[in-house]
C-alpha cells in the first residue's frame, strides 16, 4: 500500500521542519554576533560578505518555502476532496451491505414460508393417505371387489411413495435452510 509510505514521508518532512527551525534559532544567534561585530567596528570585509551570503541563502530558502507552501495548500485541498470521497465510498459500501443483509433476510423468510407451506402439503397428503388406507382395507376385507383391489393398492403405494419423497425433501431442504440461516447470521452478526 502506497498510503502508509506517503504518511511516513509526511511525518519525516514535519520532523525536518523542526530541524530547520532549530537550525534557524542557532543561526539567528550567529547572525546577531556578526551584526554586533559590525556595529562595534570590529568586523572586517569577510564578516560583511558572510552576512550578505547568509541573507541571499535565507532569501532563496524563503522563496522555496513560499513555493512549497502554495503546493502544500493545493495538496491539502486535493487531499480533503479525496477524504470526502473516501467517506462517501464508505457510506455507499455500508449502505450496500445493509441492503444485502435485508435481501438475505427476505430470502430466509421466503424460504421459511415455502417450507411452512410444504409442511402443510405433507400433512394434507398424510391425511389423504390415511383416508385412502381405510377405504383400501375395507375393500380388502369385503373381498367382493377383487377387480378393484389392485388399483387401490397401486394408488396407495403411489401416495406412500409421494409422502416418502416429501420427507426426503425436508431432509435436503432442511440442510440447505440451515446453511442459509448460518449465512444470514454471519452477515447480520446476530
Amino acid at each position, binding site marked *: 500500500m502506497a498510503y502508509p509510505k506517503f504518511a511516513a514521508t509526511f511525518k519525516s518532512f514535519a520532523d525536518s521542519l523542526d530541524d530547520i527551525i532549530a537550525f534557524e534559532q542557532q543561526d539567528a544567534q550567529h547572525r546577531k554576533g556578526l551584526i554586533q561585530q559590525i556595529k562595534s567596528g570590529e568586523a572586517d570585509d569577510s564578516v560583511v560578505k558572510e552576512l550578505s551570503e547568509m541573507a541571499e541563502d535565507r532569501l532563496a530558502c524563503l522563496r522555496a518555502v513560499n513555493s512549497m507552501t502554495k503546493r502544500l495548500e493545493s495538496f491539502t485541498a486535493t487531499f480533503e476532496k479525496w477524504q470526502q470521497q473516501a467517506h462517501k465510498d464508505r457510506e455507499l459500501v455500508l449502505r450496500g451491505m445493509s441492503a444485502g443483509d435485508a435481501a*438475505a433476510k427476505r430470502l430466509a423468510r421466503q424460504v421459511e414460508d415455502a417450507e411452512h407451506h*410444504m409442511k*402443510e402439503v405433507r400433512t394434507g*397428503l398424510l391425511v389423504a393417505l390415511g383416508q385412502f388406507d381405510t*377405504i383400501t382395507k375395507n375393500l380388502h*376385507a369385503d373381498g367382493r371387489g377383487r377387480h*378393484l383391489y389392485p388399483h*387401490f393398492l397401486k394408488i396407495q403405494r*403411489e401416495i406412500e411413495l409421494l409422502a416418502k419423497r416429501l420427507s426426503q425433501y425436508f431432509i435436503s*431442504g432442511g440442510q440447505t435452510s440451515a446453511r442459509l440461516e448460518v449465512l444470514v447470521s454471519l452477515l447480520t452478526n446476530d
Partner: protein
Amino acid sequence: MPPSNKNDSGNIKVDFQKHYLGPAEAVAAKIGSVHAQFQKAANAIIAPPPPGLNAADLAAHADYVKILKKDLDLMDGAFNELRTMFKHLKNAH
C-alpha cells in the same frame, strides 16, 4: 364391510360407487387440492431471490434451488401420476 343387498337374480349386490369409488374420488379431490398447494409451495421455493442479494447469498440460493428442483419435479410427476391412477380407477369398475 359395507351393508349389501341382493339383486334381482338373488346375488349379493355391493354398491362399489357408494362405499369405495365415491370415497376414493373424495380422496382424489383432496389430493388434487394438496397438489395445487404443493405447486404453490414449490414455485415459492424456486422463485427468483429478492434483489440486492450479495454474491455469496446468490450462490447459496442457486445451490438451494438446484438441490431441490429435481425433488420437486419428481413429486410433481408423482402427483400427476396419482391423478391418472384415480381416473383409471373409475374406468376399472
